[in-house]
């Protein structure tokens, strides 16, 4: 009866501790968030195509037509969109320079923490060319790295090789298909994973919660909750191991070996023999194992993201 009561009280304490920790976790996860920096999308007026290269110098109407397509897509998707055509001064940019440039250009044009993207079509003459998409806000969640890579591969068909001449129709085709691909790949429900931008001036997390977009310096609540639970599991397990190890030291351990009560002088064998009764030899053929030739696969390269951008260097075949 007493033992039953003790078990019950232990159970109540354990349940109480778990409930307390759950409340604490909830508080840490959902009520210690930093400020939401998200600014969203205002209008499509700043969206369009920036022709720094001057490829449409002789056909401003075409440039305006493309900008209009871009603005329409921008309005449809509630995303700022800028397509940037660099001049030859950026020919010597490294890939990192390109990424920094696109990220800064986006921020200068639309502002930080807004929804949108900037597509940098590298027609500066750099070889190999380095295209890049800088994303911000909702666009970071919708256009994941995989989707951006798919877009790059799809647009390779319309863009000229790095070493060849670039004609306005190349850009026209690329811009039209880019806008089309943005629309077809747009899906808000896809963006369940938070996006972490480590290269921003202040690293931020972008995520959806209850239908709203958040950009915060702190981790998303669910991630914080997971960290709390994992930390408590590690702490609890450590505490349990220490408890059990220490408890084990509080057990009775000594035992005297009874062999001390038998002296050699008190042993008298009348038969103490080891008699060989049989002997035999067995033999086995040794199997020779011929090792099969192995192959070593070469590692493939992979794309990588940098800042809020996805770059692509393999187009312009």
């Amino acid at each position, binding site marked *: 009866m*007493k033992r039953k009561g003790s078990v019950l009280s232990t159970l109540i304490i354990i349940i109480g501790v778990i409930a307390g920790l759950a409340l604490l976790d909830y508080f*840490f*996860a959902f009520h*210690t968030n*930093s400020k939401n920096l998200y600014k969203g999308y205002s209008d499509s007026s700043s969206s369009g195509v920036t022709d720094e290269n001057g490829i449409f110098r002789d056909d401003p109407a075409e440039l305006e037509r493309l900008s209009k397509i871009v603005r329409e897509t921008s309005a449809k998707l509630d995303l700022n969109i800028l397509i940037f055509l660099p001049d030859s001064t950026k020919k010597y940019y490294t890939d990192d320079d390109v990424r920094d440039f696109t990220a800064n250009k986006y921020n200068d044009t639309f502002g930080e923490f807004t929804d949108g993207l900037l597509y940098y079509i590298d027609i500066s003459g750099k070889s190999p060319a380095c295209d890049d998409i800088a994303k911000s806000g909702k666009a970071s969640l919708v256009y994941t790295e995989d989707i951006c890579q798919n877009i790059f591969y799809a647009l390779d068909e319309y863009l000229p090789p790095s070493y060849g001449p670039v004609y306005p129709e190349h850009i026209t085709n690329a811009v039209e298909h880019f806008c089309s691909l943005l629309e077809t790949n747009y899906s808000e429900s896809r963006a369940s994973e938070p996006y972490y931008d480590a290269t921003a001036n202040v690293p931020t997390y972008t995520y959806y919660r209850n239908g709203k977009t958040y950009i915060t310096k*702190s*981790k998303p609540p669910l991630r*914080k909750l997971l*960290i*709390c639970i*994992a*930390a*408590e599991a*590690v*702490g*609890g397990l*450590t*505490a*349990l191991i*220490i*408890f059990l190890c*220490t*408890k084990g*030291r*509080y*057990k*009775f351990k*000594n*035992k*005297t*070996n*009874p*062999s*001390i*009560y*038998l*002296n050699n002088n*008190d*042993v*008298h*064998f*009348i*038969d*103490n*023999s*080891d*008699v*060989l*009764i*049989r*002997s*035999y*030899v*067995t*033999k*086995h*053929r*040794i199997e*020779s194992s011929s090792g099969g030739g192995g192959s070593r696969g070469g590692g493939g390269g992979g794309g990588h993201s940098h800042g809020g951008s996805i770059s692509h260097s393999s187009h312009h075949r």
Partner: protein
Amino acid sequence: MESVEYKCPNCNADLKFNPTSQKLECEYCLSAFTVDEIKKLCATTENSIPQEAVQVQEDFANHTHLYRCKSCGAEIMADDQLTATFCYYCHNPVILAGKMGGDFKPDKVIGFKLTRDNAIACFKKWVGKRWFVPKDFKSQQQLEKLTGLYVPFWLADCHVNVDVRAIGKKLRHWVSGNYSYTETKEFRITRVGGMLTKGIPADGETKIEDLLMEAIEPYDYRELKDFSMSYLSGFYADKYDVDKAAVFPRIRVRSNQACSAYVRSTISGYSSIIPSSEQYNISNTDWRYTLLPVWFMSYKYKDKIYEFAINGQTGKLAGTPPLSKGRLGLLCAAIGAALSAIIIVVGGGIF
């Protein structure tokens, strides 16, 4: 017609004839003897008690007081110069129950060599390494409960007939050409003979944990002396409440373990050993009722008695330390919480 009753040579209980096995069997210690064996053994038994031994028994009876604890039932002996006031085991008051009977006079005794101060120093050293014992376990009040106690032991010299047979295999491997060869040699191993395990002790006392008493062994029997009342002076002695027959199974197990370990030590050099028969039969046991010195302390914590004992001759100590689970739990919880907090802060779980 005169009926003949044979006593078990191992535990002194009555032997009964079993028609099935055609042997005289002891239902207490489960020993079995053929009629010839028992007749041979009984022929050498000394039945008479020397006159001087009778005198010593009377002396013991006249000068030994028996105290009884009403709380736990422990029976404590003390000489007539010492008045027992509390029970060494449960620390409740004891009452004088009368004189001891001469039958309880021990044959042998080993006197205390460890003083009370030595015993306290041993205890402090032992308990000092244990941080999570309850605080009052280390208190002066608790140390005062350390009692010099002569514990009744049955010392048994067991004559063991050993018959061990096994098959041992020796393997030798070599390679020649494309073949691997294994030579197996089988040996018939035989170990037959007699062994004498001397002085295996078993405490004749139900209060104190048997394992605790085994843990503070061994005693140096070279210092065994014939019992004299003078050894009791200043100490208490426990009265045995377990007789030879009751302790014999424990003795037999330990004797067999000793013999078995010895036999195994004589069988070596084999890749594998397959035992075919292993028999250790105790044919005869010589008993000595002995008082051995123990510094004893008990501690009641959360309805459980924790016992601690020091060999009063060698200083070897043993015991189960009580664990304050609350104190240990708090420390573990603090460590766990600190670790969790570090992980949460470093992992960015809060900010």
